[in-house]
């Protein structure tokens, strides 16, 4: 039986929550148009301020600039920032994914070299997994890194690379050995300096008008040998464990939260029964998903494997993020006739969220992949 334990946050977490709320209140100028989606607000100045507060790399050891705090404290900071619509995208991937990856699998030199910059909110990373012919089937990656003396020569193309045009590094899944019978063998991850190593970055506009996607082309890009994350040949194990960290956090159900807030504002303090039920329905989902996410944080804190539970939270959370705007649009009086001045915030956040919503069940593992993970956990595969 799948178990999501009851977890109560400790009082330290609540003290921290108040600190984050005060910080958010003092930094409203960084969020003129709050949106809870974690990719929408790129603000290096804000990220650096978070770094100063010690709110990036919170769970890492202090020798690498970390805060040695619990997964619960990290969750509190994360959910408070997202709920407020704070701009967190600049450091997001580095904090959530690249840093923990290097901490777990990286060499001592790599940890020392990259982690303090991430924790200070000044060093940003991209993920180099997908390729033009590789989406969910990650083992079909074709980009190669061939050893040549003290270097690796990289050839291939990565795609859907969020913020590659402004981030400092990309960690790429590459083939360091030719394909063999074991299709998960022969992969490594390698760190490329996006500013200095000669990778070509081409922007891809998305349907929401965003410019954060890119294609990154490697043509005989040479990087030093010590850029391989940990041991060569360990790439598959690295990417699969890395994907599990990114599936259960509050960003998997809060992407549309500001739409909810503005919807409640328009409904007013005396909503019709229909409006009240819509508010209550969405709130019941938020309350439940949040508790499930906290349960997973508790499992992480105990060092448990959270693969299936995290996939469940993401499956439920992403579907809910898509339902939310659908509910919201039908309870505001008439979307097309809303007073533009009075209801600008609702319209802006609603339209942006709806346009982004197709990505909710694609990024970080598609719905189809997640359902497969859950089915395996149920013993069906």
């Amino acid at each position: 039986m799948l178990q999501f334990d009851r977890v109560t946050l400790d009082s330290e977490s609540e003290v921290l929550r108040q600190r984050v709320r005060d910080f958010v209140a003092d930094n409203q100028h960084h969020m003129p148009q709050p949106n809870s989606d974690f990719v929408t607000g790129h603000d290096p100045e804000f990220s650096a301020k978070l770094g100063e507060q010690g709110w990036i790399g919170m769970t890492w050891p202090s020798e690498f600039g970390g805060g040695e705090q619990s997964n619960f404290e990290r969750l509190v900071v994360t959910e408070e920032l997202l709920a407020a619509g704070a701009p967190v995208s600049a450091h997001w991937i580095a904090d959530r994914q690249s840093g923990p990856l290097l901490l777990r699998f990286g060499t001592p030199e790599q940890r020392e070299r990259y982690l303090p910059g991430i924790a200070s909110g000044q060093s940003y990373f991209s993920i180099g997994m997908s390729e033009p012919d590789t989406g969910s089937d990650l083992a079909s990656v074709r980009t190669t890194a061939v050893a040549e003396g003290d270097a690796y020569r990289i050839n291939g193309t990565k795609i859907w690379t969020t913020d590659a045009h402004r981030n400092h590094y990309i960690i790429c899944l590459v083939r360091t050995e030719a394909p063999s019978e074991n299709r998960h063998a022969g992969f490594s991850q390698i760190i490329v300096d996006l500013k200095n190593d000669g990778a070509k970055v081409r922007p891809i506009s998305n349907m929401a008008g965003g410019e954060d996607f890119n294609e990154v082309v490697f043509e005989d890009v040479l990087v030093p040998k010590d850029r391989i994350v940990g041991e060569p040949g360990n790439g598959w194990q690295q990417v699969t464990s890395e994907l599990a960290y990114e599936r259960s956090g509050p960003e998997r159900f809060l992407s549309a939260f500001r739409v909810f807030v503005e919807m409640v504002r328009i409904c007013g303090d005396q909503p019709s029964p229909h409006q009240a039920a819509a508010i209550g329905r969405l709130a019941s989902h938020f309350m439940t998903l949040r508790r499930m996410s906290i349960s997973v944080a508790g499992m992480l804190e105990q060092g448990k494997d959270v693969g299936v539970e995290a996939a469940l939270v993401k499956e439920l959370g992403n579907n809910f993020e898509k339902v939310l705007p659908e509910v919201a649009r039908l309870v505001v009086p008439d979307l097309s006739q809303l007073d533009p001045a009075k209801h600008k915030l609702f319209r802006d956040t609603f339209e942006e969220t709806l346009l982004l919503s197709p990505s909710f069940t694609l990024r970080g593992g598609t719905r189809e992949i997640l359902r497969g993970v859950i089915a395996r956990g149920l013993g069906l595969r």
Partner: protein
Amino acid sequence: MAVLEKFYAASLHADWGYVDMDTRQLIIDTAEKIFADHCQKGLLDAAEQGIFPQDLWGKIVENGFHQLGSAGSGTDAADLYAFLKVCGRYSVPLPMAEVLLSNQWLASAATESGSDFASIGRLNDTSINQVPWGRKATKVLGVAADSHKVLVIDAPSINEQGNNLAGEAHDTFLLAGTEREIELEDSPFAQMALARTNLMAGGLQATLDLGLQFASERSQFGRSISKFQAIQHSLAVVAAEVAAAQRAADAAVDALGTDRFIDEVSASKARVGEAVGIVAEQVHQVHGAMGFTYEHRLHHFTRRLWAWRDEWGNEFYWQAMLGSRLAAMGADKVWGYIATRG
């Protein structure tokens, strides 16, 4: 401590070690064992025909389960609701929610022998209706949506026998004007909703388990249907809803006695009720025509789920209750209210 002594005796009798188990786990394990033995298809069918499951009731009394959560039983309300989850998982054809809550409300009125019990129904101006197994009850209690008062009929005389959608006995009693009233601290209506929520959480788990079992046993096109991606994805959706339902049900139990009780019950009954529609539909689809027969046991679970989501406030009722509260707080307060510690 009568209840615990009986558990210990039963556990020792069954050759179980109990020393390291906490009370709640002991209750759950003992209940599961009894229900697995007794709540077979035949018993559920018979109960639907109006035959009271006397032997099962005897087992419940023998183990002290009829006093769970009552003062002096050595168990608390959280044990009571954990037990109701187990009842839901086995479609126990007895009004355990009503028996246990009425005992609690009447300050442990249950007799040691269990020769009588009270049941609870919806109160309106002239009657108390939808009283589970009211025909067997020696006391009948009536609860209305917006009152902390409970009406008690001490010598009930049944007016009409009936059934709910699941074939559970639901009877009606006319008011004579001579009833007495008691008053409770926590809303009795919300407590009944919480009881249904936990029964549903258990029933949802059982429904998922039946789906998993059937998918692995049924073979088509030369292989187990569990190997088809369409089936795997249906059951993954079901598992996600069931997991959410468990967490939601537990959260409302944890809010007992706090000022968030009504709101947490609202969220919980609404969320679990929403899961019912999805889970029942998908698991029936997985079962094909077999699950549509009376002979298969799936309907004993799905019909109860469909009935229970409408009893003691449906999703719309509780969603609107919660939504009105949040709207009154104002848009900028909703996050603070959602972001609780527990």
